[in-house]
Each structure stands twice: as structure tokens, then as C-alpha cells.
């Protein structure tokens, strides 16, 4: 109970819980859409999803400042690639949030004559760029970890043991692929934060890909990926050690 209270008093935590609920409702709606007996339940789920979505748009007011501050902090990083990726990601995220804030003002009626479609597209594009930058950063970190691990003596012993005892045909035919995959999995196993962050960012890619029409998938896939991403976000807030740094 204590952790529940501590968690809900953190703004980001509450937002992730709402986001998880929103995507769970969207996924359930998609799965039950052809079931004629559950029409009432589907209608209720749609109401919850719409309300939570509207509420989250209000919660996003002012988050652009957080992203700008994160961009300022990431400028001071020593590693050039990390610095570039994170700064670009944070700036794009800030731009996407500003577009979202303008769209909220339009939906409430504070601003009237704006082209809703173009602002929405801009928001999706900036968010897409931000996620791409995050994925690039994840790949860079994973490659660094793999290079580090490959030089490790203990790991070299483990690797030769694994290669010699594996009798399956496919992996014997392509030993380099087998070695590469083994190295990848071992690196990710020893750094769960990086693995979680990579998975989260890959899931986050599907929503803008669908909205921008680059890789259209159905609402179910988008909802499922959104749900996985929100759940990972909740886990990283509940256990701060699983949060990738910087």
C-alpha cells in the first residue's frame, strides 16, 4: 500500500499508469470489436480511453520545459555520440510536446483558427525523430557493451565452451552468427536497463510509424506496443536501478 501511495504521488508515475490503462482499453476494444455480445463493454472501454486520453493531454502541459532541461543536461555529456543522440531526442520531444499543447488548446477552444492536421503531423514527426534518436543511442550502447564484453577473458572462455558444445546444425553452419547472437544476449542479460530501454523504444516506434503512414499497422498492434512501453515505463519508475543512465 505504501508503494502505491509513493508511486501515485509522482506525476510521471501517474501518467504512465494512465497511459497503460488507455492502451489496455484500446487493445481490449480492438480484440472485442467483432464480438456482438460485448457491444456495451466496448462502448464503456471507448469512453474510458477517450477520457484518459483527454486528461493526459492536460497533464502534458508544461512537460516541454522538462525536455528542454534534459537536453541542456545531455549537452554536457562527454561521449560525443551519446551527447548528439540524447540532445536531438530531447529537443524533438520538446517540439512534439509543444505541438501537443497547441492541439490541446485547440480542443478546449482557447485557440480557434489553426490547421489541426498539420500540427498533429508535425507532432508525430518530431516524436518519431525523438524515438529514432533514442533507438540509435540504444544500439550504440549495446555495441559498446558487446565490444567490452568480447575483450573480457572470462567471457572468451564462456564463448568457446558454448561454441564447442552446441550440436545444432544451423548454428554450426553459421558460427559467426551464433557467436554474435550469444555475445548480444549475454551483454543484454548483464545490463537489463539497456535491454528494457531498447524494447521500450522499439515499441514506441510503431505508433508514429502508423500515424505517418510509413508502416501502417492496425490499431491492435499500436495499442499492444503502447501497453508494453507503458508497463516498462512503470517498472523503471518502481525500480529506479532499471532506468538507463544517463
Amino acid at each position, binding site marked *: 500500500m505504501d508503494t502505491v501511495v509513493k508511486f*501515485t504521488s*509522482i506525476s510521471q508515475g*501517474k501518467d504512465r499508469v494512465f497511459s497503460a490503462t488507455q492502451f489496455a482499453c484500446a487493445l481490449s476494444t480492438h480484440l472485442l470489436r467483432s464480438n456482438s455480445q460485448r457491444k456495451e463493454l466496448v462502448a464503456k472501454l471507448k469512453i474510458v480511453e477517450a477520457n*484518459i486520453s483527454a*486528461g493526459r493531454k*492536460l497533464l502534458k502541459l*508544461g512537460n516541454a*520545459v522538462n525536455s528542454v532541461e534534459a537536453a541542456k543536461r545531455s549537452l554536457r555529456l562527454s561521449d560525443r555520440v551519446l551527447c548528439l543522440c540524447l540532445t536531438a531526442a530531447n529537443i524533438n520531444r520538446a517540439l512534439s510536446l509543444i505541438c501537443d499543447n497547441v492541439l490541446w488548446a485547440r480542443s*478546449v477552444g482557447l485557440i480557434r483558427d489553426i490547421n489541426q492536421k498539420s500540427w498533429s503531423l508535425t507532432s508525430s514527426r518530431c516524436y518519431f525523430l525523438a524515438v529514432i534518436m533514442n533507438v540509435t543511442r540504444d544500439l550504440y550502447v549495446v555495441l559498446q557493451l558487446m565490444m567490452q564484453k568480447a575483450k573480457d577473458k572470462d567471457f572468451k572462455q564462456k564463448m568457446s565452451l558454448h561454441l564447442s558444445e552446441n550440436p545444432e546444425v544451423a548454428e554450426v553452419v553459421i558460427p559467426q552468427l551464433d557467436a554474435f547472437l550469444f555475445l548480444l544476449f549475454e551483454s543484454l542479460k548483464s545490463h537489463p536497463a539497456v535491454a528494457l530501454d531498447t524494447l521500450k523504444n522499439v515499441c514506441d516506434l510503431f505508433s508514429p510509424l502508423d500515424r505517418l503512414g510509413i508502416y501502417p499497422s492496425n490499431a491492435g498492434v499500436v495499442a499492444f506496443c503502447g501497453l508494453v512501453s507503458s508497463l516498462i515505463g512503470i517498472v523503471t519508475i518502481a525500480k529506479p536501478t532499471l532506468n538507463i543512465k544517463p
Partner: protein
Amino acid sequence: MDSWLRFSAQSQARERLFRATQYACTLLGYALQKGGAADELRKTVSQLEAHMSLTRKLLRLGNSVEALESAKRAIHLSDSVLRLCLTISHLNRAMYFACDNVLWAGKTGLISKLDQHKWSQRSFRYYLFALILNLTRDVYELRLLMESEVRYRAAKSPPSPYPSTTLPIDPLSSSSATPALPAMSVWLHRQFNLIVTVLYSNPPLLLDLLKNGCDIFIPLDRLRIYPTGQGFVGACGLASSVLSILTIVHPWLKLKP
């Protein structure tokens, strides 16, 4: 910028900001109505107010648990009056949040046949009880502080042996009809001075008293016990939200426990 980050990181802080905006919209709506402003502007303001109110209800979905936890913590207080007041106040707040959650479900359409007026009245009743208990606690703390201030003053300067002769005699009052009146007014004046001194040296208590005092007009108006009108309710709500934002920005101004 740093203080904004710390501020927005706390969910409660943002909720207070939305509350301030909601009541500012109420006040603005009243002012626009009185001033005879355009229909569209009034519609926008009332739409924004309704949107804020519904979103705040959404944000409050988990608050019953928080209030129950606060009540559990308040049971362990040493002072029996404080213990009673705070525990029952938190329990009433938990009931208020529960009714509020039911109202959210009704307003969004999750529960179709909900008597919104009945549940709204219910929630405001619990809110009123909680506020009355908070005010009782404030008055009790004020009383304690006044007593300790009197003792401190008495210890600082020894009292004169004939306290009755130090009272100034009003030459205009009739001596035979009401000899008690000047003594009464002097006593009142002294008490008032004492209250002002105590409150001036205890800003958390003053802020809490003002905040609860402003807040109490909202349920009193909604329950039709003491109707004051939209403008006054909006002004009171805005004032109490601003005061509670102050206590979040400067945590030393928060009354403890």
C-alpha cells in the same frame, strides 16, 4: 527553471494549479456575465472550467487510498484532540474522494443511471465535515499557542498585585448601568492582540486557517446552507488554491502534522 521542475514533478502541485485555473474560470465567468460579455467567450470559459473539473476528477482517482493512509498515520499522534480531528478529517476526505470517483464514472458515462445531484451533494457533505474538522484543529492549535504566549508573557514580566486598578476607566460610560462593558472591551482587545501576535509569529497556522476559511464557502454554497454566488465561490477557491500552492513551493509553510 529548477523550481518549476521541482514543482511540476509533484502531482499535487499540478493538481493545485489546475484547481486555481478552474476557480479562476468560475470567477471570470461570473465577471463576464455581470459585464455582459460575448456569448462565445463565456462559452469558452465555461467549457475550460468543465474540462478542468473533469480532468481533476480523473487525477483524483487514486486519492482515497492516500487519504486512508494519512488517517492511519494520524492515529499515532500523541495529542488526543489532534488525533481525533485529523483522523476523522482524513476519513471524511477518503469518503469525499470515493463519492468523487463515482461522480466521474457517472459524468463520463461509465455508469449510465447515476443520480448525479444526489452523489454531488453527498460528496460536498463529506468535504464540509472534513473542512469543519480542519478548522476545529486550527482553532485548537491557536488556543494552545495563545495559552503558551500568555504564560510566556507572565513569566517575562511579573504580574502587578492589583490587576483591576490597571484597567483604564472610560469617562464617557455610565458608571452605574454597565460597569462590565469597558472591562469586556479591554478583554476583547487584549484577546485580539494576542491572536494577531500568535498568528503573525506562526505563518503556517495563519495560512492553514485562511485556506480552510476560504474553502468552507464552497460546500456551504453548493449545499445551499449559505449561498454566496458564483463570484464569491470562485474568488474563495482561487485564494485557497494560491495559498496551497504557496505551501508547496515553500514547504516550511505547511502546518505539521
